[in-house]
């Protein structure tokens, strides 16, 4: 059975059972792989939280144990990250209005030293 649809020579009889089998199995296996990952990473946080809670309970910090595993909202994480970043970079909103003028001094180098220049060369000869 050959039908010309939009100038394309589509032959539906060419599609066999084995082609559908490959397509169905292939699609199912893609799902299977990602479902397994989904299940594993859905369970993992609960497992990690339980371990963390046990650790805090052993250490006697009941408050921390109760908080372990609770979701930290994105805004809170962002605020903490910004605070740490500002602290580390010592940035501040209010300027002190004191300008520090750095003293400029030339560092020593034999290439610009007067004692090694050409005029003094004879003196070294002596």
């Amino acid at each position, binding site marked *: 059975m050959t039908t010309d649809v939009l100038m*394309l*020579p*589509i*032959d*539906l009889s*060419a*599609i*066999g059972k084995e*082609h*559908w089998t*490959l*397509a*169905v*199995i*292939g*699609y199912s*296996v*893609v*799902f*299977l*792989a*990602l*479902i*397994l*990952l*989904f*299940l*594993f*990473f*859905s369970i*993992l*946080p609960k497992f*990690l939280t339980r371990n963390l809670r046990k650790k805090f309970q052993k250490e006697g910090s009941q408050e921390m144990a109760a908080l372990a595993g609770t*979701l*930290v*909202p*994105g*805004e809170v*994480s962002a605020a903490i990250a910004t605070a740490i970043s500002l602290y580390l970079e010592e940035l501040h909103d209010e300027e002190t209005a004191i300008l520090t003028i750095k003293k400029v001094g030339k560092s020593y180098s034999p290439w610009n030293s007067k004692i090694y220049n050409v005029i003094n060369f004879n003196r070294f000869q002596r």
Partner: protein
Amino acid sequence: MEGIVRFFENSGFANATPGHLLMILVGLIFIYLAIRHEYKPLFLVPIGFGILIGNTPFIEHAGLHLGIYEEGSLMNYLYMGVLKGIFPPLIFLGIGAMTDFSPLISNPKLMLLGAAAQLGIFLTYIGAISLGFTNPESASIGIIGGADGPTAIFLSSKLAPHLIGSIALAAYSYMALLPIIQTPIMRLLTSKQERRIKMKPPRSVSKLEKILFPIIAVLFTGFIAPGSLPLLGMLFLGNLLKESMVTKRLADTAKNAMIDIVTIVLGVTIGASTQATTFLTRESVYIFVLGATAFMISTAGGILFAKIMNLFLSPENRINPLIGAAGVSAVPDSAIVVQVEGLKADPDNHLIMHAMAPNVAGVIGSAVAAGIMMNFLL
């Protein structure tokens, strides 16, 4: 006088055919789209320039060793990296080193959207069979629906090396045109109310989870579809280099210098492989038609599956169905399309972080699909 005649006979002017000129025009369009509109410039500039190199006419098989299909030519040597399937896994190594899987780890159910959006691969495979392509050719054409250039090149290098040029060109062209292809389907399949759905912010992910993800994922996917190991092995290795924080230098090389070098060589050789004498065939036209269909089906598959998932989810956990479109693995282009479309419905609704989850899951899904095709057909 005889020398002048011979010189003219060897020149491009004497050997040019309408096919060569057409392909040169295609190359120029690619370069124009990349530079003027910044459509996938990292790929389209090398590919477009490769098309110019590959389609500059000359006397083929005259011992000049110029053409990509002539043994001993520079392009032929470089093309070996494509034919032997070396370049795509190296690109995956770099992609792994620059990909953050935390959106996926923080909301694992979105992985299913990455699987659903592979529908285009398998339906296009059936479509290609009906157009008279062989089984391995059809699988290579179907993989265009994964919207993943390296995966498409890798699979076609194994199953249908003679179609690499057309398949790669179709995949990258449609990836560049993703906003044009996906947007109408997204609007058609979702209501304005659905497009406005605000999703819960993703939770923070621990370092241990980030380290465990590539290790567990490579084992799971490798055991299920060993054929996907060259791609996914390298992808997850790159990600482990990044997340372990102890191999910063290796991760930096993988995601910068190495991926850049491979992208240049891959792009130029893929472009040059579209030599008019071998490329301009009826099959190439069919591949382009099937490729567009594959992209559309995959986009629809992801969106519809998100809508189905919403039937089973509580109102506060509902998914914005637009992010299903990001299940095709064009990272991060399809996530950006989702973000733009989401903002049009609600200017306060930023979906990009949520869309990145199915987006990276799509990379895994399409590589697994390629692995299964290889397992079945090799």
